């Protein structure tokens, strides 16, 4: 499987050697590296927009109904700079939608999946380069649809989950659903491509169990997407049909809202929740597994020591993916779903904490007895572990059905998923950007400013998200434009103001990253092929790699984590380095 005939290689190289126009090289490129970087830039722009939307939410929670400085006058001039309740609802809906569908999913699979998969397995490109290009360009209708939805009426305002029947009363939801479907099509094209490429195009000697964790994570993520996405696409079309064609998949008999009686009925609002979470729970793992894989590679590299428990790490990712399909009901414990079903989902959900625990123990095992180099990527990777522990443990509270009765739809949940998705995935992504930046652009990012960026982000993110557990403990509900008219929550205003100021400072700290990023693309020190002394294959290619990636035919001799091996004098042992000729019969014990 992993061998490719010399003939097909020659053909592929011939195709790539062709030098095209500017448009076909940098815009409609079929080169996986260009597509990956296109995904990276697009998602970083949306990351910035999504962050600003969150600040709008935070402003309202800290200073309800008071004029928002600077941005308020610009965006909400109709209300004199004040955030109206409709606008507030739109802000948190779009913050989540943008962050999930236009940032996290495409930055992991689209940017890093595209850039890294062929390089790390020793292929010259993806299996289907044109499909790959389309997977990027299908994001643009999604950008357009999500972008346009801001301006339809008051914007989408039924949460990122788009629960009917509320979503069926909102005009902008049509655009939102079209955007969602386009993201789904893009992801689907990507996942088919990743699966084929990883199965078919590995370099000679690259067996499945010599793949780096990044590739294993991308592979299993692609499996998740391929099996779960069709359900969401179907559900999306059903809701779109309810909105436009007058069907009633999610509308109960004789239902009316906004003084209009909907003729078709016989549907069930809960059906949407089942279909939506059947995709969106696996999607939670689509949003974390690739980060786990990349973090594993970064930690092993800067621990200068083999990854602890490689196979258990692979099996636990597979375990998360398998169990990920049977836990969706834990989003619905108090939704009206049968409580008997709730018990079953509780047991399954408890068990999905197990592979996550195994991964944490193995990361700790990896840095045990290491020689840790505290580089910027390593700091982000270690913070991923530290923060994922918090996000993982807080998950146990909501898996427990009786406790979930109280904390469901409170800020406890908000704290939990921000610890997993921001403190986890986003920090992992920052680490990955610092780590692979030299391979992408051939230059290094500034380490000192990278550490300043890390320090500020790490401190402020904990000041923002950790106190949210406490808010949830009081029962502070999500999605309320003004929670303080409830007597129960009135005293929480001060804590919310603290969180908001930390959030503002956290977003401001990202300016350091942006400057470092763009400055380094042009003026950073030239990196060379392997600046981190890493074992994996991509570091043997030129930085940045040209068309066809490798200027030699890579042959793989060993797994990716042979750091500190007694077989060689240097503290790393690249996968392509041939073993010494006069190798002793047995490795001497030490």
């Amino acid at each position, binding site marked *: 499987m992993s061998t490719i005939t010399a003939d097909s290689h020659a053909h592929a190289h011939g195709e790539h050697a062709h030098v095209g126009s500017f448009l076909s090289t940098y815009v409609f490129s079929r080169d996986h590296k260009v597509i990956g970087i296109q995904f990276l830039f697009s998602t970083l722009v949306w990351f910035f927009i999504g962050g600003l939307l969150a600040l709008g939410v935070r402003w309202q929670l800290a200073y309800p109904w008071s004029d928002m400085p600077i941005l308020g006058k610009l965006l909400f001039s109709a209300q004199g700079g004040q955030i*109206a*309740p409709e606008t507030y609802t739109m802000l948190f809906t779009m913050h989540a939608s943008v962050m999930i569908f236009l940032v996290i999913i495409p930055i992991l699979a689209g940017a890093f999946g595209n850039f890294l998969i062929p390089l790390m397995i020793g292929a010259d490109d993806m299996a289907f380069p044109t499909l790959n290009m389309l997977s990027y360009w299908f994001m643009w209708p999604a950008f357009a649809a999500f972008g346009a939805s801001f301006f339809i009426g008051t914007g989408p*305002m*039924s949460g990122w989950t788009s*629960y009917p*029947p*509320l979503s069926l009363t909102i005009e902008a939801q049509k655009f939102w659903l079209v955007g969602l479907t386009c993201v789904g099509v893009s992801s689907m094209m990507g996942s088919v491509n990743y699966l084929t490429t990883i199965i078919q195009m590995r370099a000679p000697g690259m067996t499945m169990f010599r793949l780096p964790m990044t590739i294993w994570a991308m592979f299993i993520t692609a499996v998740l997407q391929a099996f779960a996405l069709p359900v969401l696409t179907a559900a999306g079309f059903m809701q779109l049909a309810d909105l436009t064609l007058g069907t009633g998949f999610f509308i109960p008999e004789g239902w009316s*809202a906004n003084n209009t009686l909907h003729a078709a009925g016989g549907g*069930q609002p*809960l059906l949407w929740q089942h279909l939506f979470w059947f995709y969106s729970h696996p999607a939670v793992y689509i949003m974390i597994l690739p980060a786990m894989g990349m973090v594993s590679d970064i930690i092993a590299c800067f621990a200068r*020591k*083999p990854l*602890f428990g*490689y196979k*258990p790490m692979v099996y636990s990712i597979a375990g998360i993916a398998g169990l990920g399909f049977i836990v969706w009901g834990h989003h619905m414990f*108090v*939704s*009206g779903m049968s*409580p008997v079903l*709730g018990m079953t989902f*509780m*047991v399954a959900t*408890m068990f999905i904490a*197990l592979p996550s*625990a*195994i991964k944490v*123990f*193995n990361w700790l*095992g990896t*840095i*045990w*007895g*290491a020689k*840790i*180099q*505290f580089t910027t990527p390593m700091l982000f990777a*270690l*913070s991923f572990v*530290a923060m994922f*522990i*918090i996000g993982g443990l807080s998950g*146990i509270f909501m898996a*427990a*059905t*009786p*406790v979930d*009765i*109280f904390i469901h*739809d409170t800020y406890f949940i908000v704290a939990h998923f921000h610890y997993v998705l921001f403190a986890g995935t986003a920090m992992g992504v920052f680490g990955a950007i610092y780590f692979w930046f030299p391979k992408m652009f051939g230059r290094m990012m500034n380490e000192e400013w990278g550490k300043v960026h890390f320090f500020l982000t790490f401190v402020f993110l904990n000041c923002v998200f*950790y106190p949210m557990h406490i808010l949830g*403990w*009081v*029962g502070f*509900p999500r999605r309320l*434009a003004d929670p303080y008219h409830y007597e*129960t929550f009135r*005293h*929480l205003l001060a804590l919310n103001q603290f969180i908001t100021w930390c959030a503002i400072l956290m977003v401001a700290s990202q300016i350091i990253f942006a400057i470092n990023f763009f400055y380094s693309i042009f003026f950073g020190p030239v990196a060379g092929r392997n600046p981190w002394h890493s074992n994996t294959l991509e570091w043997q290619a030129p930085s940045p790699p040209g068309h066809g990636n490798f200027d030699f035919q890579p042959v793989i001799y060993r797994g990716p*984590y042979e750091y500190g091996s007694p077989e060689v004098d240097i503290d790393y042992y690249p996968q392509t380095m041939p073993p010494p000729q006069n190798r002793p019969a047995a490795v001497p014990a*030490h």
Partner: protein
Amino acid sequence: MKHFWALLFLLVPIFGVLTFVLAPYYNHSFPRDISENGRVIDQLFYFILYLTGVLFVATEGALFYFMWKYNGRTNREPVKYSHGSHTLEVVWTILPAVTLLFIAIYQMNAWADAKMRKPDIPVTAEITGRQFNWDVRYPGPDGILHTPDDIILVDGEIHFPAGEEILLSIKAADVLHSFFLPNIRMKQDVVPGMQQYMWFKCRESKAEVDIVCAELCGWGHYKMSGRATFEPRSEFNAWLAKKSAEQQAHRITQATP
């Protein structure tokens, strides 16, 4: 500061634990519990909090210790060239598995009490969520819902008898809502087209608490609040009679132009 980063990571468990220890002193913890069964949920929360707290301190502590001890700048020993340990993997798979299974089983009775063992008593009231209010319908003197003597109130002021089991029939008129009583530790989404029940008991003789809508129901979601008043049976009956009379008077004025 050779160990700056290790020390930074040490702050995580320290502040993490301190936050949860200090919050209750500033009234930042569970709202006052007035229910008969709420303490079960609180105890389960604390059980998980202590358990995860220990794991949190242990794992974050190990992370700090390894970052300190195996700092490449100070650690002069060669790295431990180890690919893992089969025994350790088995241990740290089975121990959490047993613990998690125990937690799951430990929850089941409380869950069944809260959501599955519906008491066999007449319905105290019917609650309907609509944008953006909680409407209530009491069965009236005949004790049967949906008869002409029903008492219907739409001002979000809902009274319940204290000290006795209450069975509510709950539903939604337009979109999803969620009937959340933080002080009773009870929450249930209401779904258009579905009829559901909710039951609880107030152990205090007099209390007035918030009713919160906990499921996004539109632009006015934030203001969909109500007040639940628990009072002794006699006061409750008197209040109900007064409301019934008001409603009757209102009907008569409407009927005679």
